[in-house]
């Protein structure tokens, strides 16, 4: 009985489902015809080319200028110049409309103006109500032509950009995409270089003024104007407003030569506070100017085209390994793009996801795609073509972009015709020719502890150091007498290491007290340092248990409770620097330094010889004039946790000589005046 009821319910369901027709039974009406918007083109004597499109839907007018300029032009020591110029044109206002005035004027009218310079193009735009056009057009022209670049806004821009640098390793995706590009194009290429503290510091107002003057000229500029206006009247207004713009000379952006040798590499960046790996796998891509372009695009559709692509289907839907997965072979206009696949997956399935990505590439090469798969991909493309021109803005944008990139007006039509002809064997042929799944570079940004040794099966894992280069000291550097400097450093060296003394390691046993906000922590340390190759072995007895720290060949590890852990470069580098900057090392290598004598200076009521020494950063040694032994050292060190430079002052006392080496048996270190560390040494051995 029960069964019958269930049965009849199922039938009911079947009937109600049948009540709706299937999607493939729908007969669609013809698509309404529509006329693509007309684009009016004209050129001024000074070289500016205009494209105008009337769009009366809303009472708005938008102008956007495209300028041939880019960070490609940045000098090596002033990376950030183009970007800063682009930002400051708007931030700093113009001669007739300084920033504060301009901001009020625009915001009162809910009008927007902006300026920018990117890697390979720059520009300026405004978006305003049409009734404000006559009043705001001259403002826009003044902003583009006569930016003020005031010093206070330059300072603000530098501060903000420096904060940006300090935050650039906070997000996984940012790190991964940046470092992957470096793997493909090289570290110092104009298309991968990064703004650093030092390159920002080097940029002056004159640089900005000159860069703007050279690039924002008529012969470099294309203007698109769209909105609620009458073309004839608009032409006249534009001619008047831009007629006196300087013509200048056309800029030629030079892209670097890319020589790619298809290395197979495995790279890892540790980020301890994530539980998902951000994976990128790939190699170099190609150029837009390529007879196989349409075939490659169709291959991309099948491999990684959104919900329907194979990567999405396999890695996400079937395997449940990721929310975000995708990628393809990119073809760029000015330099080869990249072939890259990405996936974000939990740490424990990192290798499984990499294998799945590579497998999909291999499949594209091994077997032909199904006819239906190809037709679906083609349908997706052709049926959505109408969206390419569904607004007048898009039509204008495409026209300007083709113009800028030197593509013919019908480049896109040609591409559509090519797409219609792509066959199954074309897809397999380009997959075989352009994709090299056996010669990929793998980059994983993830949690080292959780990922474990999963990557080792792909080859030797290269750990990439993404430590942010510290900014140059903002304290003015004193300069002094070089000859006297040599003399005093020589005296110091002799005082520390008695002539004729030879040793390769120093072993010390002592007690260290770390002063922390939670109270003092006492640690007993036995350390052995070799200054010949900067190796360190430190055994520590801490309240949390025993631990050992080792540094050699530029890398370091820590052993605690029987567990060995690799130390990140961000921890190892400061330890190596500390060895290099120690008085013993400076004394050992006194001849390699170029010290300067800064004169006699008073510290804590006593007179000392101030000696500036070029360690890994600048150190001032304050020598006792009688013994030539350092009583105090001062240096400025960038503390990444605090995001600023701190003054590190160490005072040395209780000098004793052991095996010909003078050693301070007590010292105390202060950061910005706060005691952070005190040490008492029990014994020393120099061997």
């Amino acid at each position: 009985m029960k069964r019958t009821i269930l049965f009849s319910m199922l039938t009911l369901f079947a009937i109600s489902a049948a009540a709706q027709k299937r999607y493939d039974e729908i007969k669609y009406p013809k698509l309404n015809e529509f006329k693509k918007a007309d684009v009016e083109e004209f050129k001024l004597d000074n070289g500016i080319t205009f494209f105008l499109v009337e769009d009366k839907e809303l009472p708005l007018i938008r102008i956007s200028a495209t300028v041939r300029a880019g960070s490609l032009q940045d000098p090596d020591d002033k990376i950030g110049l183009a970007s800063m110029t682009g930002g400051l044109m708007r931030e700093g206002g113009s001669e007739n409309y300084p920033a504060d005035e301009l901001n009020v004027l625009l915001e009162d009218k809910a009008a927007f103006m902006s300026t920018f310079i990117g890697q390979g193009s720059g520009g300026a735009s405004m978006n305003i109500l049409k009734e404000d056009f006559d009043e705001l057009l001259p403002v826009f022209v003044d902003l583009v032509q006569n930016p003020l670049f005031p010093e206070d806004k330059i300072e603000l821009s530098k501060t903000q950009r420096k904060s940006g640098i300090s935050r650039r390793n906070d997000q996984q995706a940012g790190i991964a995409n940046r470092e992957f590009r470096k793997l493909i194009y090289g570290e110092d290429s104009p298309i991968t270089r990064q703004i650093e503290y030092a390159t920002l510091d080097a940029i002056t107002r004159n640089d900005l003024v000159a860069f703007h003057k050279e690039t924002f000229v008529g012969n470099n500029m294309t203007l698109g104007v769209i909105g609620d206006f009458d073309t004839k009247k608009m032409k006249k207004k534009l001619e008047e407003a831009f007629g006196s713009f300087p013509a200048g000379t056309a800029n030629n952006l030079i892209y670097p030569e890319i020589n790619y040798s298809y290395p197979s590499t495995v790279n890892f960046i540790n980020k301890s506070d994530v539980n998902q790996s951000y994976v990128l796998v790939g190699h170099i891509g190609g150029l837009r100017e390529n007879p196989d372009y349409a075939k490659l695009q169709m291959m991309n559709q099948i491999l990684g085209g959104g919900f329907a692509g194979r990567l999405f289907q396999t890695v996400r839907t079937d395997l449940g390994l990721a929310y975000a997965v995708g990628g393809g072979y990119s073809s760029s206009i000015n330099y080869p793009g990249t072939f890259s696949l990405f996936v974000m997956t939990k740490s424990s399935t990192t290798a499984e996801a990499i294998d799945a990505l590579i497998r999909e590439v291999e499949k594209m090469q091994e077997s032909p795609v199904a006819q239906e798969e190809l037709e679906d991909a083609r349908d997706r493309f052709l049926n959505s073509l109408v969206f390419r021109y569904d607004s007048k803005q898009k039509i204008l944008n495409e026209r300007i972009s083709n113009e800028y990139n030197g593509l013919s007006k019908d480049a896109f039509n040609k591409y559509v015709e090519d797409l219609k002809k792509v066959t199954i064997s074309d897809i397999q042929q380009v997959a075989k020719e352009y994709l090299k799944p056996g010669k990929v570079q793998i980059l994983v940004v993830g949690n080292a502890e959780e990922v474990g040794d999963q990557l080792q099966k792909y080859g030797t894992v290269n750990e990439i150091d993404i430590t942010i280069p510290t900014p140059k000291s903002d304290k003015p550097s004193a300069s002094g007498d070089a000859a006297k400097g040599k003399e005093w450093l020589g005296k110091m060296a002799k005082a520390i290491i008695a002539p004729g003394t030879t040793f390769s390691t120093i072993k010390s046993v002592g007690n260290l007290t770390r002063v922390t906000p939670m109270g003092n922590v006492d640690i007993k340390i036995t350390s052995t340092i070799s200054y010949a190759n900067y190796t360190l072995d430190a055994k520590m007895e801490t309240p949390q248990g025993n631990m050992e720290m080792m540094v050699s060949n530029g890398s370091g590890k820590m052993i605690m409770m029987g567990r060995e852990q690799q130390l990140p470069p961000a921890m190892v580098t400061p330890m190596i620097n500390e060895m290099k900057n120690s008085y013993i090392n400076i004394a050992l290598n006194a001849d390699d330094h170029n010290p300067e004598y800064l004169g006699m200076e008073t510290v804590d009521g006593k007179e000392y010889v101030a000696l500036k020494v070029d360690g890994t950063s600048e150190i001032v040694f304050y020598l006792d004039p009688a013994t030539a032994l350092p009583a105090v050292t001062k240096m400025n060190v960038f503390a990444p946790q605090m995001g600023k430079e701190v003054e590190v002052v160490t005072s040395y006392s209780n000098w004793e000589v052991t095996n010909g080496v003078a050693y301070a048996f007590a010292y105390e270190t202060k950061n910005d005046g706060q005691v952070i560390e005190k040490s008492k040494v029990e014994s020393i051995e120099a061997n």
Partner: protein
Amino acid sequence: MRVLKTFCGLLFLVLFVGIFGDNVTAQNLKEFEKKVTEFTLDNGLHFIIIERREAPVASFYTHVNVGGVDEPVGNTGIAHIFEHMAFKGTKYIGTNNWEEEKKVIDQMDEAYKAWLHEKFSSNPDEEALAQKRAKFEELQEQAKTFVVNNEFSEIIQNNGGTGLNASTGADLTNYFYSLPSNKAELWFNLEADRFKNPTYREFYVEKEVVREERRMRTESSPIGRLVEEFIAVAYTAHPYGRPVVGWNSDITATTIEDARAFYDKYYVPSNITFAIAGDVDPKRMKKLAEEYFSDFRGKGKIAPPVTTVEPKQRGERRFTIEGNSQPIMLIGYHGVSDSHEDFEALNLLGNIISSGRTSVLYKKLVEEEKLALQVGAFNGFPGTRFGSLFLTLAVPNQGVELDSLEQRIYDEIEVVKGGSITQKELDRARTNIRAGIIRGLANNTGLALNFASTYMTKGDWRDVFKQLDRYNEVTLDDLQRVAQQYLIKQTRTVGATVKADS
């Protein structure tokens, strides 16, 4: 297929409260009256059709008045999981044999529940646990044999569909895409089918996808971690304190049976609004709506309301979370829902103090004192259906201590409480709000989204324009009063990320 990005949500809110001149808005409303057709089917489903003949395309938008806030205890994340399931097909799309597949899906759910009960029993038996898991996994593999992978999304894309996606927020779930306008019937067909006949296909694999989404947006993102912690601290009782993506263990605990119950309660006609904007004929749209949606179940059903009210906060709450990134700080004050008379005043207040280069927080803290890389204040977080937070986000510049930036924000808020805002500033904020509305009406997706969500929350799409009357009524005294009333230490929550080693 995503959790509504909290900050996008906020920005959107700020954007869509505005116009240029009052007359411009009035004109716009008049023009839209001509272009908009509305109708409600017998079962209560409401449709808004907006004619826009710019190009032969149309955008389709489904707004469901259900979000994280409506979820039962123990099933956080279920609204979002259901949203993912809506892409899995119907009784004939995405399957090669629904009759057989359904049997296996049901068995699979039973097997999962058996495993779940063992796992969370007081004394789980390891062997039984492994056996039950194996049984479940075997059925899951079996269920996979019926699946035609992603067929539902592919049909849309093969027909030229673009912008296919969905999102789930604290207050709402929405589904949207665009089609060449001659294919409008395809949307009716598929949308009706997926919401009339949800199948829960690939449910448990998809939960793993959702878990990866959680790892990406929350667990591996400094701001994501901070926001999750922040709402959990700011709300003691109200479900606004729970993450929309769900707690990890709740994602584990959620079954197909739970998802069915959720669907039955919340996906009812009174809780759903559809909007179509583009090159479409309203008469034909109405005919299609009747053809496809008139048998949608649940006529007269009302979704259960949220009954928990956040108790009054008894004092400031402060916390930090450790991470390996530069500091970020959130400061939130308990405020009001969007139906409260002070909502618009608080929106304006946030706008005036932090939006644009002339705002006081930007001018003082970013420009002059160079303390902040970024500082912003928004009203209406994490949702607006219920008592929400007035939230300030502060990102300090390199080398600036969080507490000095925090103190300066409080100083400036005190100045505002003293009545420092001028009429000029108020007018400027209103103008920008108006401009935001106009600019948001320039595309099909924006139109469909604004009109449907406004209908759902305010009962009339015209409120897109009429809300301006409420903004116009706000006075300088109101701004001072709401600042004094709501921006107080006692109802404040302050949270920040700090470096693990500092």
